[in-house]
């Protein structure tokens, strides 16, 4: 029996979009926490720590998210680690986001002028105090626009979770298309829902960029 695409079907997509948001949030919180650790490791004075972070960033950035997801979902069970799709997808997205956020934030930390470090050093601050009280607050200002911009990428990239059978927005779209055969309306609605989630972030990013750069020298 072929259903037609009506309000009930749209509601189905809307409910699935909730999981896209949940997954995005997991990726952002998890990736953010891991990302700040990797970013700090990346600017460490210890060569070994720095290299580990650089390796992590390079490997993850050079691997499709989809493959990371496959490794977590299909690969880890070989070692006895079996996760439900949501957990596997959240873990894969966290790994992916951590590398990109670490690289964005490393750039922001390094964009704080060297003289700021020198001034903090000259005042006898400890290395951690220089980072926490002098450098990170300034790096944070620089980091807001690109970070918000990357959040948009995360939301859209959660669609790869559909491949491992997690019913988020994209997966719900394909399911709905299979029973309605109205791809234009189904995927049009899916696109609209992604847009509704991403657009406010894009606007926010542009606003922040304008506000943070307005009236700032250099």
């Amino acid at each position, binding site marked *: 029996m072929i259903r037609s695409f009506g309000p009930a079907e749209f509601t189905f997509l809307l409910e699935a979009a909730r999981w896209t948001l949940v997954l995005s949030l997991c990726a952002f919180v998890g990736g953010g926490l891991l990302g700040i650790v990797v970013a700090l490791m990346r600017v460490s004075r210890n060569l070994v720590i720095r290299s580990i972070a650089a390796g992590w960033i390079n490997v993850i950035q050079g691997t499709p998210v989809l493959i990371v997801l496959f490794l977590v979902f299909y690969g880890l069970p070989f070692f006895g680690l079996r996760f439900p799709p949501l957990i596997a997808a959240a873990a894969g997205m966290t790994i992916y986001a951590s590398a990109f956020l670490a690289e964005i934030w490393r750039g922001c930390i390094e964009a704080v002028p060297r003289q700021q470090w*020198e*001034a903090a050093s*000259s*005042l006898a*601050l*400890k*290395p951690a105090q220089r980072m926490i009280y002098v450098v990170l607050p300034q790096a944070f200002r620089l980091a807001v626009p690109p970070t918000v911009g990357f959040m948009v990428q995360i939301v859209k990239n959660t669609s790869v979770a559909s491949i491992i059978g997690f019913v988020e927005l994209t997966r719900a779209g394909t399911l709905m298309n299979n029973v309605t055969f109205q791809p234009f309306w189904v995927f049009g609605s899916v696109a609209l829902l992604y847009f509704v989630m991403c657009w406010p972030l894009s606007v926010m990013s542009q606003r922040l960029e304008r506000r943070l750069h307005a009236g700032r020298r250099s």
Partner: protein
Amino acid sequence: MPVVVAKDVRKSFGSLKVLDGVSLSVNEGELIAVIGRSGSGKSTFLRCLNGLETPDSGKISVADHELAPGEDALRALRQDVGMVFQSYNLFPHLTVGANIELAPRLVKKISRAEAADIARSVLAEVGLADKYESYPEQLSGGQQQRVAIARSLAMRPKVMLFDEVTSALDPELTGEVLKVMEGLSRSGMTMLLVTHEMAFARKAASRVVYFHQGRIHEQGPPEEFFGAPKTPELQQFLGAVL
């Protein structure tokens, strides 16, 4: 009793010899003006004194701290040695008050209220008592540099280093900074300053030191130094800048 002692300090950046055996001894309360062409090593020498640069060889002791590698030794030294930079280097995300209070609170572990008292008193010392709540970007260059001096003073240093602190300022703003430094010297602070302000060196310094090709080429009290330079290099340099 010398407060600053440098013995045969050498430093190279790659194949470039920047300091080629610098020895200098500074007594308490002296104001040493260090002059010389750019690239003569004067700024590098100053930065060696508080460990921002590490000499390749030689000995440095400042305010009874031997300069030694390692964070702890450096921090102990830096608590007694203030440094002011050409580009002020105030922390732009903090108010003037917070800029000044940061180090006393974090390093000396004093209370917020006590730190605020110190901040207000050093700000008054540099004539900016009303700028406590301002952000650095709201101040003129001269005011920012005076705040930077106040920030260093808040740590109650025994020696102050000034690295071309008026070079980035418009001529009409240098006066206010030099006045603060003169007052500081009169109050007995031991000071070393790398400067291009010859008139100030002549008026305020107890000794002027001329750096040439990584060495101290000539030094002496200002009248003698400027009035009767002995070496042809200094004569030529003074001829070019005066």
